């Protein structure tokens, strides 16, 4: 009877529902979703009671409700809670909106997590939509342009090519300015894992990968960037360059869920350079009226080496969990062809994460294993090559009337200085195989209430082998075919033990952390070169015996270093409004001199949540207002191994014939300095976080002052000394970075069918060098003919790092010869020509969602920087054309004389400002309600690098060719870089 009655009531309700009547209620069922699919684990509660349920793995729920006026509250971490008046509805479909502005999200800090509202330092968290996802082959690309104060530049366009990451400016004169990367609690070594290249044809070892390139972007849940010293001081001697904390995905509670993400796409060169066609080249007449060599062909050498490249990526993951455990396994595959023929990167990733709780949740175990294999096929592209030319250089300068092939089908190779880039590509085989694993196990145990002990044991291992074959058919090789086998092996092991204690007494919240960490790094490498191969059918590296073993060269090296640290942190909060953080780390490194084995790195920070104060609340303006003030001291221990120690030994340039026999020479190669220590950076930060309109509009402003001292430098010793140079921490020298960062995010429209949000990041950084004890440090070795010994960049007092220095070009005289500004003596004046460091970096992103469609767009850019167009300096001058090399159309038409030398001057230092439309994505979420086996599906199309607004005349102003001198890196150098691609992809994300 009762059942019938219910049935009756249901039917009635159903009828009434359509007419809007309200009546008594029974069971309500429904599904909860977000924009990507169904949401399991969502809390569904009857408002004002403790009654409720959670959604099952399919996002479904069923709940008895007392009456029609019942209000159901749907809440889930990271989503805006939604309240729904039942009003007789029997089935509900609820869509929760992800709350990017949620202040109570957790952020990852060193050795723990913190509520964002309790944070006192300057950190930025990227997750979900904030990460650049499409066509990111490395996690670093996922951050590019997303964080104010963090400048990320892609060094070139090679698949898997290196990135330069600078958190709040340049802190050092040497290399070793990369931030510390911490993956799930395991700090990585910024070890260069690119094995050396080969001697001939510019197969060099640059284009280093960033240390996290082996991670699959699909496995990354969030990236937290710790910028100020109060956040990074917990990493002590490794904190000065900023810390990037990467958290990988874990399984979520619920039945196992299978996900697939994949895309396919094409990429092409964004814009090739406008060089002369064969006919334009033929039209040129020398002063005596004769034409240049004409071999009769019409070859567009750029077209010959570039292609439409194909990329595909497939990622599968399976994860789930119960209250006590979770698991997630994933597999990724990426095959990315480069736009230069034959170049390619293939990457296979696997990752397994399991967590387990035990002993009434007192013990929590987490195990992580990430493994990857990368296969890079590279081309003879160098950044520092000689004038003979690599592939890019040859494609630009080679006579366009030369044919690719001779009539007999062999490659047409004119001479050693005029190389056929197609032959270079096809007759060179350069493959690097990289295997990397990272494994860690953590156990956290609650010893007594509020006191937890955590142990983290981790290990990383990398094994890289590069095999290069240069075929005998290449006529520019001095001694027939060449083979190189070069390797790098690196490993590190880590053990960390720490205790945390959290206690709340009335309004006082106290958190303590105390710990010890030990990490050991080993790296070794080998290099082997054999020449003289005359066979053609096999890869020489497969049988070096075919070469001339008497012309073989070999070398190897091995280094080990250790770090030991003691660290602690105290967080104190009163009433959730007044927040104090104190940290300290006592860090020791085996690289430091005996007199300075350990350094102490303290920090202090205060924050005041003004919005919790009555006088602010009463203003009714701010939904969040927080003032942060931080100070801290951090270090940079990325100094070369062994420099504090004496080296007496043999060196090639000390060997010699003694009594007719080649005898080693023993001499001082390095003078000891037991005082060698880390570089110290002291940073102050003042920040304000704003929230308006219930945090629909948020903003963060940070002002910082960063000063690096104890700068480590290899300077000339006062001759005669034991060795010609010596390492020391220069006493007075300071490198100062002052900056302002602004981040604004707003939800402009938030309706059921339509949401629109937008974000803007702007930062301004001014870098300055003070009290350098020498007049200048030169770097930026220009490459190319006529440019030997030309160093274009200096580090000098009262100028930023990366300052270009040289002649000031004032145009051509009547004869087409360059006029340079003169000094008082009538000699060419040498002046500073601007810095390669940008003053401003900025980005803009917006996302629009309408019903099932989503659309997003991302722009980024820099302003105020200079780029040295070394390629143009070496190639694109009139004299070059006159001697038979190809040039740009501008050069053909210019007034320049063929007699004009290609001296380095401001003529080739160009404005490097740019604005790039980096990404446009259009997505559609398919309604999968009717398909049982699929939970959610989204398809999308993406365009990358669609538009570049710049005055720069080279391929791309976002470039960083390696042109270092004596270990001092140069920046903003462009020499025959691998051009960046424009890419279009279509992809799908499916959850089963």
């Amino acid at each position: 009877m009762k059942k019938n009655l219910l049935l009756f009531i249901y039917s009635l309700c159903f009828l009434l529902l359509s007419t809007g009547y309200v009546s008594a209620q029974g069971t309500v069922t429904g599904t909860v979703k977000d924009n990507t699919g169904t949401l399991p684990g969502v809390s569904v509660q009857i408002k004002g009671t403790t009654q409720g349920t959670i959604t099952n793995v399919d996002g479904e729920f069923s709940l008895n409700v007392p009456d029609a006026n019942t209000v159901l509250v749907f809440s889930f971490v990271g989503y805006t809670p939604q309240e729904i008046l039942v009003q007789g509805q029997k089935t509900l479909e609820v869509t929760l909106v992800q709350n990017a502005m949620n202040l109570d999200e957790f952020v990852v800090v060193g050795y723990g997590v913190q509520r964002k509202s309790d944070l006192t330092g300057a950190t930025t968290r990227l997750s979900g939509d904030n990460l650049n996802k499409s066509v990111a082959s490395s996690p670093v690309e996922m951050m590019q342009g997303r964080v104010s104060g963090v400048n990320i530049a892609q060094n070139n366009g090679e698949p898997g090519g290196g990135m330069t990451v600078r958190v709040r400016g340049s802190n050092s004169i040497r290399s070793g300015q990369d931030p510390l990367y911490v993956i799930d609690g395991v700090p990585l070594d910024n070890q260069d894992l690119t094995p050396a290249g080969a001697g001939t044809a510019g197969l060099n070892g640059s284009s280093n990968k960033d240390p996290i390139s082996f991670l699959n972007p699909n496995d990354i849940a969030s990236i937290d960037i710790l910028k100020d010293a109060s956040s990074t001081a917990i990493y002590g001697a490794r904190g000065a360059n900023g810390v990037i904390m990467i958290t990988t995905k874990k399984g979520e509670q619920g039945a196992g869920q299978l996900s697939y993400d994949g895309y396919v796409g094409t990429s092409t060169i964004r814009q090739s350079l406008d060089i002369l066609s064969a006919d334009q080249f033929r039209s040129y007449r020398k002063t005596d009226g004769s034409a240049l060599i004409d071999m009769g062909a019409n070859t567009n050498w750029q077209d010959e080496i570039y292609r439409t490249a194909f990329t595909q990526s497939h990622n599968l993951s399976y994860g789930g969990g119960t209250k006590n455990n979770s698991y997630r396994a994933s597999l990724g595959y990426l095959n990315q062809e480069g736009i230069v023929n034959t170049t390619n990167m293939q990457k296979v990733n696997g990752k397994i994460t399991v967590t387990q709780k035990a002993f009434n949740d007192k013990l929590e175990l987490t195990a992580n294993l990430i493994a990857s294999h990368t296969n890079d096929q590279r081309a003879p592209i160098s950044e520092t090559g000689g004038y003979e030319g690599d592939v890019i250089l040859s494609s630009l300068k080679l006579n366009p009337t030369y044919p690719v092939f001779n009539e007999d089908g062999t490659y047409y190779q004119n001479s050693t200085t005029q190389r056929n880039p197609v032959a270079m590509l096809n007759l060179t085989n350069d493959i690097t195989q990289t295997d990397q694993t990272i494994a860690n196990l953590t156990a956290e145990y609650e010893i007594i209430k509020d006191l937890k002990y955590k142990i983290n044991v981790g290990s990383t291992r990398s094994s890289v082998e590069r095999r290069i074959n240069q075929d005998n058919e290449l006529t520019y090789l001095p001694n027939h075919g060449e083979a190189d086998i070069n390797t790098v092996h690196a490993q590190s092991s880590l053990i960390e033990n720490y205790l945390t204690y959290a206690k709340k007494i009335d309004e006082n919240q106290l958190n303590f952390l105390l710990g010890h960490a030990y990490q050991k790094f080993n790296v070794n490498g080998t290099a082997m070169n054999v020449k003289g191969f005359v066979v053609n059918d096999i890869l020489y590296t497969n049988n070096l015996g075919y070469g001339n073993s008497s012309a073989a060269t070999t070398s190897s090296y091995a280094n080990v270093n250790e770090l030991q640290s003691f660290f602690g942190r105290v967080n104190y909060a009163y009433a959730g409004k007044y927040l104090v953080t104190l940290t300290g780390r006592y860090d020791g490194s085996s690289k430091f001199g005996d007199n300075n084995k350990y350094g102490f790195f303290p920090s202090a920070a205060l924050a005041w949540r003004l919005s919790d104060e009555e006088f602010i609340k009463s203003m009714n303006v701010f939904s969040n207002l927080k003032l942060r003030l931080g100070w801290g001291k951090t270090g940079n221990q990325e100094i070369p191994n062994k420099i504090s120690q004496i080296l007496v030994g043999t060196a090639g340039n000390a060997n010699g014939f003694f009594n007719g026999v080649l005898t080693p020479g023993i001499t001082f190669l390095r003078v000891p300095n037991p005082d060698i220590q880390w570089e110290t950076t002291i940073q102050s930060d003042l920040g304000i976080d704003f929230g308006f309109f219930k945090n629909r509009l948020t903003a963060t402003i940070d002002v910082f002052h960063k000063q690096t001292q104890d700068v480590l430098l290899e300077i000339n010793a006062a001759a005669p000394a034991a060795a010609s140079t010596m390492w020391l921490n220069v006493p007075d020298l300071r490198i100062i970075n002052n900056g302002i960062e602004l981040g604004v995010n707003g939800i402009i429209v938030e309706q059921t069918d339509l949401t629109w949000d937008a974000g803007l990041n702007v930062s301004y950084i001014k870098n300055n060098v003070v009290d350098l004890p020498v007049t200048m440090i030169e770097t930026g070795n220009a490459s190319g003919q006529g440019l030997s010994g030309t160093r274009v960049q200096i580090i000098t007092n009262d100028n930023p790092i990366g300052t270009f220095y040289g002649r000031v070009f004032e145009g051509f005289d009547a004869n087409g010869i360059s006029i340079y500004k003169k000094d008082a003596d009538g000699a060419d004046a040498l002046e500073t020509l601007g810095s390669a460091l940008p003053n401003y970096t900025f980005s803009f992103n917006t996302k629009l969602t309408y019903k099932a469609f989503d659309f997003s767009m991302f722009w980024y850019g820099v302003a105020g920087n200079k780029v040295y167009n070394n390629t143009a300096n070496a190639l694109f001058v009139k004299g070059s054309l006159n001697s038979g090399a190809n040039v740009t159309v501008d050069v053909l038409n210019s007034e320049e004389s063929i007699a004009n030398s290609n001296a380095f001057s401001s003529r080739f230092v160009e404005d490097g400002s740019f604005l790039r439309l980096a990404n446009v994505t259009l997505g559609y979420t398919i309604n999968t309600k009717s398909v049982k086996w699929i939970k959610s599906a989204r398809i999308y199309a993406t365009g990358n690098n669609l538009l570049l607004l710049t005055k720069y005349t080279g391929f791309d102003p976002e470039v960083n060719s390696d042109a270092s001198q004596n270990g001092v890196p140069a920046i903003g150098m462009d020499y025959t870089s691998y051009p960046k691609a424009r890419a279009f992809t279509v992809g799908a994300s499916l959850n089963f």
Partner: protein
Amino acid sequence: MKFNKFSLIIALLTLIFTSCTDLKEEVLDEQLGSDLVNNPANIDALINPPYAQLRRTLEWYDYWALQQISTDETAFPTRGTDWFDNGAWQQLYLHTWTPDHIRLVDVWDVLGQGISRSNTAIHYIGEFPETATTTQYINEARFLRAYYMYLMVDLFGQVPYRDADDLDFSTLPEVKDRKTATDFIITELKEILPNLKTKAAVTSERATVGAANALLAKIYLNYQVYAGEPKWADAIKYADDVISSSDYTVTNDYWSMFQYNVTNHPEFILTCPMSDDFEMGSGSVWVNFTLHYNMTFGTYTSLWNGGCTTTDFVNTFDQVNDARFYDSRIESTTGLNQGFLIGQQYDMAGVPLKIRSGDPLIFTPDFTLGDAKENEGIRVIKFAPNPATTRQFSSPNDVPLLRISDIYLVRAEAKFRNGDVTGALADINYIRARRSATGKTLPALTSLTVDDILKERGFELYWEGFRRQDMVRFGKLNAARQEKPATDVKKNLYPIPTSALDVNSNLKQNDY
């Protein structure tokens, strides 16, 4: 449960303490040990580095460049888009250098390292129990230190110095002015003379009595430049000592000295031994920078089309009768002649070569310093390359730093300046008698002017790194010449590099 808790804490404490480390840096790939320098068995390896440093003085772009490119023997014109190199070469030729000149910085370092390496050898060999060998080696190292100091005196007029036993490198080295340094070098050489061996005993690859005498002769010849007073008699005396020893012979085959497989040539007094059988680490091959890009032969595929000589200099030669002007013995293996390369060039098969634009490769006497065409300027090949070398950048040639003809000419000049013209003519004609081209006779001189002496030095020693010193002594360095206006006499000294002044306040900048 309780048990578990304690065992866990114990485990954790154990872990903390066992993982503690003293952070002593472990070095895996270098033998750091100072025991290397304290082991008497390593004595040969200790004397070697100051000898090896001699190779650095032969790099074409360093010491050699400073002694050659500022003179009438050598010019590195800018060739369109090639060889501007930040103005380095034009500045050397025009004497418009500044203290930041990249070559000055490098040469200062090369010579400073020479002194340091000599000091290291003197000090550590001096710590060994004294034997005849240690005494001899210490004296050889003192010779080498004197040699590097002499080069610094010649180029810069100041020498930073520290005692071999002064190991406190935190104090600044003292700086000897030109006269003090010259007198110090002379005293040193005279002190060590009795303890050095002869060439017959140890070859010209080591510091010998003959080398010390020859160096003294050369220093006395230049004493007026270095210290302001003439010492012609001393120059004659030490030159006599070299010539009268039976260790050295002026041969009748001039070019035999400049082949790649020469060792211990009878004309050599002090030799820098090199080999392309090994990667030597330094020491130049002198053909790459002068030959045109397209003059490839054997394994020489990278040629740079740079330096040439001046017409003024070439025109001083008796181009028909003087063997030193031209030699064809390497043509069949390289396509090149030794001596001066003029006119149309050919490959080994006799096919005329072309420049990159397709025109014939004809080396012309004239060149424009700021804008030379590819084929402008007469090229010079002094040392023969090994066409089959597998190490294009390791020189196969043993290079003489001091040789007997130079000492004959030193004596001739000293005699001439001392009023003995007959004696001078005899010495010069002694050389000329051995320098006739095949089937020709190089006539003896019958009269002598001071210019003839400079000319003869040019004929005999061109492109061997002596020209600047000679032109300074003859007052000719600053004269106007092909493509160069007259320059001030202060250009006879190079400025001290800024990078050296930055770290040693005892140095005083020269008026440059």
